[in-house]
């Protein structure tokens, strides 16, 4: 079992029994722990310790594996021939090298958009079918992403962005990271460009610091206790943008790809430890 110390809340799970966890009980416990504690950060640590043992994201991985290997769609095909960048059917280590340039579609794709390509080309689904309700807890895409990410456990993130379009998107992603807009003047950088910062009691990664960026990027997708759901990085980014009071970017849009290329580049070398578990 691998654990990353840089992000105390992220807990990769392997081989453990998935206990039936009631998020409500955990949160209730956390509140009383906070109430008794003089030091709020110590209280948060207790809360995290309570979360350490079993990660409900393991259920998502199992569902994802079933989706990967079960014939589905109009063509009744599995996804086992899907090329995630390392050749047809190679899942091990693929997530750690995404987003990347895919010559067959002539664009840079992240895990979600690549899975949709495989679901449409191999299984004959429409893009609408493949992405239907993808933000709902337990969606097919969420489970597939979690399964694929889990197959990169321990693999260092390796997104050098050497292909010309990857390099362009990395540069665009950096500009977007600093791009302030909207009624509250927010950019990603507002909350994520300094060490040791929190919104309320929630720790914030600093994506200008490689070690902090690794702590974050290696632990998504993650089970979020507050949402009782697994969130992928795309989902995480869309919600950050919602909190910035900007409109929702489209699924698989270039803005989301560009941000992920830049973020992964910042986190290069970090050993994957997903699925994680977070507040």
């Amino acid at each position: 079992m691998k654990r990353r110390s840089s992000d105390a809340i992220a807990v990769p799970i392997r081989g453990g029994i998935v206990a039936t966890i009631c998020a409500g009980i955990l949160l209730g416990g956390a509140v009383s722990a906070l109430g008794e504690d003089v030091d709020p950060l110590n209280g948060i640590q207790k809360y995290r310790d309570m979360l350490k043992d079993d990660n409900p994201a393991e259920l998502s991985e199992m569902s994802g594996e079933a989706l990967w290997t079960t014939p589905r769609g109009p063509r009744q095909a599995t996804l086992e021939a899907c090329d995630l960048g390392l050749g047809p059917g190679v899942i091990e280590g693929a997530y750690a090298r995404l987003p990347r340039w895919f010559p067959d579609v002539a664009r840079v794709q992240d895990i979600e958009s690549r899975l949709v390509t495989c679901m449409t080309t191999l299984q004959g689904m429409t893009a609408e079918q493949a992405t239907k309700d993808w933000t709902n807890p337990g969606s097919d895409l969420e489970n597939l992403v979690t399964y694929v990410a889990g197959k990169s456990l321990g693999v260092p993130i390796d997104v050098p962005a050497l292909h010309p379009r990857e390099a362009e998107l990395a540069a665009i992603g950096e500009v977007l990271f600093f791009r302030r807009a909207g009624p509250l003047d927010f950019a990603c950088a507002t909350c994520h460009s300094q060490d040791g910062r929190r919104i309320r009691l929630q720790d914030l990664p600093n994506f200008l610091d490689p070690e902090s960026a690794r702590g974050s990027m290696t632990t998504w997708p993650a089970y979020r206790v507050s949402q009782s759901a697994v969130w992928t990085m795309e989902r995480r980014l869309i919600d950050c943008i919602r909190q910035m009071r900007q409109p929702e970017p489209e699924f698989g849009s270039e803005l989301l790809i560009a941000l992920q290329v830049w973020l992964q580049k910042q986190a290069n070398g970090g050993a994957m430890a997903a699925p994680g578990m977070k507040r």
Partner: protein
Amino acid sequence: MKRLVVTGLVCAMSAAAVGADDDSGLGKQVEQVLRHSFTTATPAEWKTRLDQDEVQALCSLHHNSPPAAVSERIAKLSSATMRYPEDGKLSGDWKKGEKLASLGTGGHIGKIQPDRPGVRRGGNCYACHVLAPDEIDAGNIGPSLAGYGRRFANSPATARIVYEKIWNAQAFLPCTQMPRFGANGWLTPQEVADTVAFLLDPESPVNR
């Protein structure tokens, strides 16, 4: 004449679209990515939530560390935005300010998790600042403001500076992370005054 007007309009629009990133076409590429990514945003949403004003564009370009001349320009633009309550009272009701300080709702749009219609906009000061010392659920992106009112003489001059900082902090600290609550129309003049009272009133939990 008509052609002139149209040309002028197009020039103004493209200047706004390119924003602050002028060289190497990167700014244009960013603009293209934005146009391709927010395909369902309405013209009003583009205007108020995605297009940048000059201050936003300058701070983005300089990664929030503007050189002196740009800093001066931002401070000047920001000072010009100040507006005050009609009754002239810059310190209002601290109890109302206390509510605004912990309220984090308002302004969320989209299909996935928008705010309920008519929900109130809050200042959400606790997201970034310690205020009342016994409220432990407080962030640290901004400085602690615990006991803030005890640091200064409780005078109209103090109230004015605090009011202006909340209205538009960039007049004092160009490219600060703090939202321009008044200048952006997020809080009303009265709400800003109530927040001033929460910070300065001796009875406020911030100062007890």
